[in-house]
């Protein structure tokens, strides 16, 4: 385990006595893209929520760059450099796109001028300057997703956790997004964890994969290892794995 990584160490989460996560250990290293996959209800979103403090952890630890952050509130975790997007987009609907992006820099304590400049930069990078003065609520779904990612980046996070960033996007949009995401870790020196059901996208984007089923890790490693793992084929990929083969 590396000193500068984000780690879950044997993390368990329970909802009303039901175990949603059972001793999951995972590591995100700066500069890499880790894909978190698994069937519906396998605990992917719960794991992200546990890492960012949105759900309480029953046992185990979360460690960010050597610092134990188990049980910290989301705000503290965010300020330590862990940013996220949500499965169902959560924009500030009555704020403009520019303000939406700026908030994260402001919350981090950046001076106004720098926060403005950073927001402007990200709007450029994500091709959002045309809608900079549009209210969050008025955007289409794909734009909302991109604003949410730009907002997460405005805090210059060390780790970026994206929960289905391409959901609801059409093929062109998701291709553009993929190109953008692929460059992020290197360009911004951050570690990225990404949840998605779109297997071709995951296979093209990720350096490593981590597979959950029923709240447990069933496989992890590079794409080929995971793709050939019998437990994965059985639990999840099935015919999708072959389909992905053809795409790749």
């Amino acid at each position: 385990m590396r000193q500068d990584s984000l780690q879950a160490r044997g993390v368990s989460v329970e909802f009303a006595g039901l175990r949603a996560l059972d001793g999951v250990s995972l590591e995100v290293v700066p500069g890499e893209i880790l894909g978190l996959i698994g069937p519906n209800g396998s605990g992917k979103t719960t794991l992200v929520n546990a890492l960012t403090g949105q759900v309480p952890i029953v046992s185990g630890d979360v460690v960010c760059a050597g610092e134990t952050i188990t049980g910290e509130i989301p705000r503290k975790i965010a300020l330590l450099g862990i940013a996220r997007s949500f499965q169902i987009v959560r924009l500030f609907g009555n704020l403009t796109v520019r303000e939406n992006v700026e908030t994260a820099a402001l919350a981090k304590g950046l001076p106004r001028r720098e926060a403005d400049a950073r927001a402007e930069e990200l709007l450029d990078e994500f091709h959002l300057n045309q809608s900079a003065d549009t209210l969050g609520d008025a955007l289409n779904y794909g734009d909302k997703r991109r604003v949410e990612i730009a907002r997460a980046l405005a805090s210059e996070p060390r780790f970026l956790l994206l929960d289905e960033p391409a959901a609801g996007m059409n093929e062109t949009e998701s291709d553009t997004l993929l190109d953008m995401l692929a460059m992020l870790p290197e360009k911004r020196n951050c570690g990225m964890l990404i949840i998605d059901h779109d297997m071709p996208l995951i296979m093209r984007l990720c350096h490593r994969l981590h597979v959950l089923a029923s709240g447990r890790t069933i496989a992890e490693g590079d794409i080929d290892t995971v793709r050939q793992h019998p437990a994965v084929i059985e639990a999840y990929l099935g015919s999708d794995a072959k389909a992905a083969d053809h795409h790749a």
Partner: protein
Amino acid sequence: MTSATRSSVIGTLVILTVPVVLALVISEALGIRVVDRIATIFCINLVLVLGLQVFMGNSGILSFAHVGFMGIGAYASAVLSMPLQMKGMALPELYPIVKAIEISPYLGMVVGGLVAAGVAAAVSYPLMRLSDAAAVITSFALLVVLHTIMVHWHQMTNGPRTLFGVQSATTLYIAAGVAILMIFIALIFRESRTGILLRAARDDEVAAGAIGTNISNMRWRGFVLSAFMAGIGGALWAHFITSFSPNAFYLKETFVILGMLVIGGAGTVSGAVLGAFVVTAAFELLRLIENSINLSGVLPTQLVGLTEIALACAMIGILIVRPSGIISAREVAFPDALRRYLPGTHFTRPKQSRSADEGGTQ
């Protein structure tokens, strides 16, 4: 603040000053006492509504405690500025230390605002952790506490009885000046770091927390500023009306101020100004109608409460048709074509987007 934001704030300020200036000019031109009174009341109401907008509009949390802070400001300024020889008569039980103080009522207004802000700063922090219904109910409880203290603190307030002998100091010019200043403060606050983060938390608390916003701290700042403005509004009112009792700062006034904000649109400063203007005008008109009907004796009985019922119905109507008020999310803006004539701003063309392919993805 970017220069674009600055110029739009100035543009909005210029437009929102219009109703205040209009009230002033009409009153001057007509020179009728009752018009002067209505114009002054409008400006005072505006200060109070703007104060409520600063907290409620930006945080999204309805606060009932607002007129409680108005009362604090009113009593603080009234008592501190009361002429020494009046104090013995009006407040026989007043503490000796306060009895020896007589400050100018204008200083009193500032002190009134500061006292209200100080009380708000001290009591409100734990409340700011609450959201939704719990926050609204606790703010109501706070109003009850403040009211009860005003009713029973004989030494300072003359108890439930009317306090007489308050210096008359609020002229239309002063009220209008303060109102314009408050419009400016409310606009600046909305665009400030605290204001933006507060509005973010209003739109989505979870997302605001996830980007690291200290939500209760932002709310607290808004609440303290809001109480400061309420305190000044209360002091303005006290030096205008010159005699009042704690009942002036309770449910009826809460309903009027809240009604103005809800009808105009709590989310914007423009809504606060519009609401105060429309409702004050409607109130006075209805009162005129009510009085004429009663005087003419058309009806067999006296007509009472028309104004309150009309406000209540207007509030219900607005909440059904436009739940977030007449001006909901965006401030009124100066037309781009005229912006170059604004003082202190240089007009810049909005940056052309370089991504021409963007439109194709929609």
